[in-house]
């Protein structure tokens, strides 16, 4: 990597964060995982959310989490097409566009990288890779929902605004993530 490339990348990322906050609101992702999984939950248990016009958000839920803050999440589960939800849905689109750009650039590098991995090892590692990713995902969102935000909402948006909770979240995350990643690297578990 060229010496100054990191700074250009950082300026792009920082500008996008500021732009989103300036135009609409700070970036946040993890809440939408609650909305979508809540929608699935509701599809199975139709009595999960009920209308209640006396409340601020117009809904109540038998689940205490969806019910909190006057049924705020319950309302979003009933009417999920919001700015936040569409924002999150658009993230893979942006990732795809960036992927197309990067593919053009390093087509040659990629082919050499792939052939270096033996087929047998790849098959064996498959279940582990996906299994670990799934488990990782479970822990990520369980933790993020408990904390009230994730790397985007707490760490980046939060610390950008000088939020105390953002600093606390970042400290807790790295205190654990660094040893876990080092341990996993030593075990030969690197993907």
């Amino acid at each position, binding site marked *: 990597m060229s010496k100054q490339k990191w700074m250009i*990348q950082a300026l792009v*990322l*920082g500008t*996008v*964060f500021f732009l989103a906050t300036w135009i*609409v*609101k*700070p970036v946040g992702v*993890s809440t939408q995982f*609650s909305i*979508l*999984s809540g929608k*699935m*939950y509701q599809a199975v248990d139709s009595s999960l959310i009920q209308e209640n016009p006396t409340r601020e958000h117009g809904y109540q839920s038998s689940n205490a*989490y969806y019910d*909190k803050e006057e049924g705020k999440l319950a309302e979003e589960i009933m009417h999920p097409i919001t*700015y936040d939800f569409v*924002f999150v849905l*658009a*993230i*893979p689109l*942006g990732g*795809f566009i*960036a*992927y197309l*750009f990067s593919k053009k650039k390093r087509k040659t590098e990629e082919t050499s990288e792939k052939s270096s991995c033996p087929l047998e090892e790849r098959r064996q590692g498959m279940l582990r890779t996906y299994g670990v*990713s*799934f*488990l*990782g*995902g*479970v*822990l*990520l*969102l369980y*933790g*993020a*929902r408990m*904390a009230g935000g*994730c790397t985007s909402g*707490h760490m980046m948006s*939060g610390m*950008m*605004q*000088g*939020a105390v*909770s*953002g600093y*606390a*979240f970042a400290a*807790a*995350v790295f*205190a*654990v993530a*660094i040893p*876990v*990643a*080092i341990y*996993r690297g030593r075990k030969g578990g690197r*993907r």
Partner: protein
Amino acid sequence: MKLVLAVILGSLFGFALFYVGAASPKKIQSMLRLEDLSLMKIIVFAIGFSSVLLALSIQVGMFDITHLSIKPMHFGVVIGGLIFGVGFGLAGTCPGTCLAAAGGKGRRQALAAILGGLTGALLFAVSYDWWKGLGIFDMMDLGKRSLFVISERFPSVFSLGTGGLLVVGGLFMLIAYVIPLQGRRTKK
């Protein structure tokens, strides 16, 4: 109109995450093992830079401060962060970056993380009552507190205004500049 903005800003965000390499679990894990620190430089610098932009735009009155939103501080932030850290270290991805990765090369791995994430969010919703009963959301309750005074809506730690945010933002950029690109050597 808001939904159009959501599409534009959301894809810009996904683009930026992918562009800086945050969509690659390999790259994140290498950062967490303190080997390839380029991503750390980028993220720390980006936080500082956006902080500086925010502080300056508030100072010149070009920022609608109703857009600001500070998340509440309580003990759940710490416990949740610790749990999040295990997942972060294991999978080398986070809720935003796995979505950005879903549009690119490590697609299937990203989808596994997304499915896991939906499961995790559901599990939390189901177990929320239990945690609430333990009182973790009432411990260490500092409310929606920020370090500096950025809006009357939020209590602050210091009585300094956006100047403080500006200095801290600059400090972040300086720290990012000093962090070396290469940390520990990879042992093979």
